[in-house]
Each structure stands twice: as structure tokens, then as C-alpha cells.
């Protein structure tokens, strides 16, 4: 046991008789027993009476938000990634209520932390309101009739979430060995210290004994978990691959004689290759020396419903990636037709609407061209077929530019290109 000081010796900021002072003394003693240097310790405190202790500690101190201390401490612990450092959290039952997720996730992930929950069964700092830890029958100034529900058993919760060391103690006298055990554990450890707030708890429950409250609540004072080795391994890879990869570059092997931008919209069904077809068309555009954009629209459940994509092919630089009304719209399925209803109504004279022969084209100013996409190649390949058809018909780019991109794609292995060259 070292005689290094962890507390400044200045008066602690608590009411007379508050159990929080006992936690501070036991924490200092535990750290001395551990023989660690004060500046190898980071104390992270929550908001609440227990949390205003930071100025009394000679460790590094971090005072954050209400309920978030265990998450903040997790960031520090993983960020430090050094087993010689100790990260200690002081939280109240209030903080453990609002930030329960952070305690559970600390245990679940095995973050190297020691969390000390100061459970006085109410919110001290804000005037004695009940928390989710307030046990049945326990009264507070705002709940004079007493709580009608059981309080959380944070020890059971942390144990089942995967904590390495868990213990509940009654916060009277010397319990520094419990804190030492928690500090020594690898991974996430928790000590719940039972207290009664002298200002609100005692006043609302005159004559009540702390040990009795704990017993009546069915909370066991014992070690719940010990010796478990479940600790987080920080992923570090300082050799990740450059995202600016040459593989994404497309060199134009062909030319084009497009004089103005063309916007194409493909509208079909999920699983029928719309996005892949659009991507191949865009790449083929680049292969022919054009500037291109490609974006997709689909429901958040990507596997069902419509799937649409807009492609712009342009001999000029493209600033605006949207288009209010496409020059060419290709509809390959019923869902695609439903999705594109408004677009069809908006299409201008001179625009072209290629639509699967099985579907009826709605009223439009565009020239309607029925094509048996689905019948020719089946539903799954209908979108792919449609881009070959489009280039065959409109010749925006050389067919060879499209063939070239298709043959280099993963799709080529699945469906032979000849399938798409019969018009």
C-alpha cells in the first residue's frame, strides 16, 4: 500500500453524513492499495451530488453530462488503450437510470472501466425525486406515499451483460478491498454502493436502517461476478487502403457525337437489375468520353418494390445532378410504372418513353415505344436488356463502348452478352 495522496485534503462538498464521502475515502484507499500513480488514473464523474467531487481528486478528472459518464469513460479507456491506466467512473443511481445503456454496453463490450454506482435510491442534487432504483415502499420528498415498484438490480443486469467483476456493498465503513478487486479486474467492473441520502432519504423515511432497506428490497450484498476475463480489443489498422484507387478510373476508349446532355431514367423492380444496368450505362458513357452521373431511388427496404435510377450523359461538365423531366424514360415493370407516374405526366414533347409491352402507357407528351423487355430476356434481365436496346435505338454512344463495359462486369459471367444483342 502506497501513501500517495489521491484527495486534496480539502473539505468534501457533501452534506454531513452523506455516504458519497465514504465512497471517496474508500476509492483513495483502494488506489493506494493498488500502488498506482495518481496521474495514471482518470476519474470520470457524472452529474449529481456525487459528481462534484472532481476538484477534490488529484488524478486526472473529467466531469461530463448527466448519465453519460460510462460512455465518456469508455471513449477515454479505448482511446488510451493502455492497461497501465485506470479509468474510474463515479455515477449516481440517477445517472445509472438515464444512462443505463452505457453501463450495459460497457459490460457487453468489456471496456476496461471501474464503475462505482452511488446508489442512494433517489436524485439527491435535484431535491430527492425517485429514480428507477428506488425500492418498493421507499419514500422521497416528491413521493411521500412511497414507491410502488421494485428498483432495478444493476448488479444482476451488469452480470448478465458480461461484466468481469460485480459486487454490491453497503456503503458503511471500509469496503476498499471490493474496489481493489474491481480495479484489478480486466474488462468492465462495477461496485454498487448502497447509501441513504441524509438530506432527503433519511428525512422522508425516519428511523429507517440502510441494511434493512437493502434486505427488504431483496438486493443481495455479495460478489456477483469475479475472475471473468472479458475485455475489449481496440481495432487498430494503420495500414488501411487508399480509397483513391486506380481501379475506379475509367479511361475513354471510344468517342461520341453527343452535342447536348441526355438524361435517362430507368424505372423497374427490385431484383431486376435496374441499379446494375444504370451503372453499366453510366460507365459506358465514360468509356465513350462523356461526363456522367448516376443515382438511385428505392424504398428503404431495398429488396422489394420499385427500383429506379437516373443517369445523365453529357459532353459538357455536369453541375446539376438532378433532372426535372428525363429525355428518355424506360419502364420495365408494373412497380416501375407506378413509381414513374408523375414523371411520365411531366415528360415533354420529343422525349421518349420505352415501356414493357405488357404494360399500358399512361397519357403523356412523350413518344411511346412498347418493347417486350420481359418477354425477350425474362424479368431478372429486363433492365440490362433495356440499356442495350436504348443504345441500339438512339445511338448516344457506340454500342462497342457498352459491350466493352458489360464484358468487363461481373454480370458478363452470368448472362452472355449475346442475350442482349437481339433486337
Amino acid at each position, binding site marked *: 500500500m502506497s501513501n500517495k495522496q489521491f484527495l486534496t485534503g480539502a473539505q468534501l462538498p457533501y452534506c454531513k453524513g452523506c455516504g458519497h464521502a465514504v465512497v471517496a475515502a474508500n476509492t483513495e484507499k483502494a488506489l493506494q492499495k493498488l500502488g498506482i500513480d495518481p496521474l495514471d488514473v*482518470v476519474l470520470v464523474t457524472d452529474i449529481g451530488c456525487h459528481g462534484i467531487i472532481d476538484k477534490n481528486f488529484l488524478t*486526472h478528472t*473529467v*466531469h461530463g453530462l448527466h448519465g453519460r459518464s460510462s460512455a465518456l469513460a469508455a471513449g*477515454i479507456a479505448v*482511446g488510451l488503450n493502455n492497461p497501465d491506466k485506470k479509468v474510474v467512473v463515479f455515477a449516481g443511481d440517477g445517472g445509472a437510470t438515464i444512462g443505463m445503456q452505457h453501463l450495459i454496453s460497457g459490460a457487453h463490450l468489456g471496456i476496461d472501466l471501474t464503475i462505482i454506482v452511488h446508489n442512494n435510491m433517489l436524485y439527491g442534487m435535484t431535491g430527492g425525486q425517485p429514480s428507477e432504483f428506488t425500492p418498493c415502499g421507499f419514500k422521497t420528498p416528491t413521493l411521500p406515499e412511497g414507491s410502488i415498484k421494485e428498483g432495478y438490480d444493476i448488479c444482476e443486469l451488469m452480470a448478465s451483460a458480461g461484466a468481469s467483476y460485480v459486487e454490491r456493498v453497503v456503503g458503511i465503513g471500509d469496503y476498499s478491498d471490493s474496489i481493489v478487486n474491481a480495479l484489478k479486474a480486466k474488462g468492465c467492473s462495477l461496485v454498487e454502493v448502497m447509501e441513504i441520502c441524509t438530506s432527503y432519504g433519511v428525512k422522508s423515511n425516519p428511523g429507517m436502517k440502510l441494511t434493512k432497506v437493502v434486505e427488504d428490497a431483496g438486493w443481495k450484498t455479495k460478489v456477483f461476478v469475479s475472475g471473468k476475463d472479458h475485455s475489449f480489443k481496440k481495432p487498430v489498422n494503420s495500414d488501411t487502403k487508399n480509397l483513391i484507387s486506380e481501379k475506379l478510373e475509367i479511361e475513354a476508349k471510344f468517342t461520341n457525337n453527343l452535342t447536348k446532355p441526355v438524361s435517362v431514367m430507368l424505372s423497374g423492380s427490385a431484383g431486376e437489375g435496374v441499379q446494375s444496368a444504370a451503372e453499366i450505362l*453510366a460507365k459506358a458513357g465514360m468509356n465513350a468520353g462523356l461526363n456522367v452521373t448516376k443515382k438511385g431511388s428505392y424504398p428503404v427496404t431495398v429488396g422489394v418494390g420499385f427500383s429506379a435510377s437516373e443517369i445523365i450523359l453529357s*459532353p459538357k461538365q*455536369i453541375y446539376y445532378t438532378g433532372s426535372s423531366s428525363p429525355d428518355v424514360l424506360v419502364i420495365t415493370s408494373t412497380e416501375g410504372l407506378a413509381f414513374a407516374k408523375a414523371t411520365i405526366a411531366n415528360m415533354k414533347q420529343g422525349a421518349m418513353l420505352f415501356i414493357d409491352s405488357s404494360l399500358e402507357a399512361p397519357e403523356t407528351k412523350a413518344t411511346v415505344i412498347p418493347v417486350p423487355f420481359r418477354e425477350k430476356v425474362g424479368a431478372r434481365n429486363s433492365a440490362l436488356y433495356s440499356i442495350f436496346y436504348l443504345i441500339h435505338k438512339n445511338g448516344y454512344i457506340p454500342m462497342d463502348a457498352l459491350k466493352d463495359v458489360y464484358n468487363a462486369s461481373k454480370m458478363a459471367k452470368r448472362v452472355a452478352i449475346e442475350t442482349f444483342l437481339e433486337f
Partner: protein
Amino acid sequence: MQEIKKRKAFTEGSRLIAEALVRAGADTFIGYPITPANLLYLYGSKRFPTMLAAPDEITTLQWMCGFAIAGHIPVTATSFPGYALMVESINMAAIMELPMVIVLVQRLGPSTGTATRGAQGDLSVVHGTLSGGYTIPTFSISNMNDCWELAEKAVHTAVKLRTPVVLLTSKEMIMTLQSYDWSNLPEIEKVTVKKHQGNAPYLPYKAGEDLVPEFLPVSQNQHQIRITASTHDTKGILQNALPEAIENSKRLEGKVRKHLPDYTYFELDEQPDADRIVVSYGISSLATREAVTSLRDKGNKVSMLIVKTLLPISSKYVEIISKYKRAVIVEENLNGQLRQLLFGAAGRNGLTGVNAIARMINPTEIEEEVLRNE
């Protein structure tokens, strides 16, 4: 018309953002998935030395703060619903003076709105994020080049000013694939952190003339570090309303404003004799550029201002716009959030907006508004 292209890639802006952030010195990506920011999560996991999946956005920001306290430079990407959950923790990061970058990919609100639809509706939210009128330096991406360049500036500004920085963008920049010539991407400078040196006593929140305190992580054990989210003195100790603590809080805004000239980025394309100017930022800049090119092709004189440093609002923007009889501010939200930030609810003679929600503003409507006589 054919330009000479050396190395054209088929890519989204998110790829450029992730790469630039890492090259600039960001080392940790904390992610919680949300459309339309998910590609950044994916690229974050491929490229950052450390990528962690958080269980929610409050945790995300808390972890980031913890990483920053330990000496790292963390990044996340989110959209409004996630950003809303982060707000209290972003306030904490600001008062703790922790560097980090939050890429905010805007989508259609209010609330969960439409996840798959772009928008430009969060400037007011970002502007009002910090309680008390403090400012988070905020950059807005207006094209593919900005994905690269502003991502670098975001990291540099976050570290130099010790502050969270927001990089504001939209679905279009993150998800739309396009041909992009990246042969001339400028070199990115890796940021250096100004650390306290030697054994002289260290006060975590004592700043010199530049108003930015020197940093020390909790990984060292020479000097005690005290960091707090409460109003505090230069030692990092909670002090409710002592003048020293109030001064310390005011310094937070002071540093952000003092250095503003060093990080005010905008694109000004003025035409001599033009009496009208189109102003835009973010996603609407795409249509604005197209509209201005087209207006000029048709013989109209028009100037263009693309704002890239959105917050703090630079008085330069007001100066520039004030020279024009007619000004049109283009943004994809209901009431013109930048317009109101620049000119207030009262507006100004000759000032109008082109606004829309749930769809991209198109170049034609901008052209019409610019030509309309007020």
C-alpha cells in the same frame, strides 16, 4: 467541347471525404448507421485506423469526446435524427474544447421525415446547437472538389481551434456516382496538434493571445488534466459565475470568431456591371452553377457567390451581396435559412429566395427568379 481528361473516376463524394479526413489526421471513426450517411460509415470502416460501431448517437458523441481527451481526432457521420440526439454532447465537446468532425448529411425532415430524400434544412439547427449563442464552425460542401478540400479544412479547424466542426452536406454528394477527374486533387496536409511542452505548470484552459489553450491528453502523467462540461475557470474547475469562468466561456466564441478570416471559404464569380447576384451553398449550388452558366450563355450579366464557410457567418458575405441591387439566395428548405441568417426576418429590398422542399431546385426556376424584376 471535349476536355482533356487524365484520370477520371466513377465515384461518390463520400469516398473523397473519408480519404481526405484521414489524410488530414483524423484517426478514429465512430459510426451509428443512418440513411443517407451510410456510405461514410462504410468508407469509415475501410479507411480509418480505428472504426467503432456505437450503440446509439449519444454514445457516439461521448466516445468521440473520450477519444479526443485521450489525444485522438474522431469523426462521425449522421443525419438530423442522429444529430438531434447528439446535441447535448456536442455542447459538451464545445465547452471541453475537444476537436472532432461531425459530417451532417441532410435529409428531408421534420423528424424522421423521408430518409431517402435529400434536403438542405439543417443550417438553423446547427446554428442553434450551442446554448447561449456560441458557434460551431460549419463548412458546406458545394461540389466534388469541396468533398476533398473542405474535409481537410474541417480537421484543421477542429484541431487548431480545439472545437467540434460540422461538415454539412446532403444525400446527393454522398450517394450519387459521377465521373470525376481527380488527377489534380491538391496535396492534403496532416494537421499538427499544438501541445504544452516542458515542465512549466499547465492550466488546461489558459489561453494566450490566440485564445486557444494548449492541449495535453490524459495519456501523459506529467501534468494533471481537468476537463469539465460545467462552467469552469482556467484550471478546469467548476465555478458557477465567477468572472474568470464567465470570461473563459466567452473565450469559446472569441476564438472561433478571431480566427474566422483564416477559415472563411467561398467562391465569388463576379461579372463586371452585373446588378444581380445569385447566392447559394451546399446541394443547391449544383443547380445554381448550371443556371448562372446558362444565364450568361444567353447574354445576361449575373454574379455568383457560393458560400462554403457557413458558420460563423462572415460579414464579408453581407458586404458582397450589398453591392447588388438584386440578390437571389437559393436553398432547399422552406423559408431560406441562410437568407434569414444574413439579413434577418426583415430582409432587404431586392432580396428574394428560391426555395423548395422534397425535391432538388432546378436551374430553370433559378434563372426565372434572377431575371424577374423586383
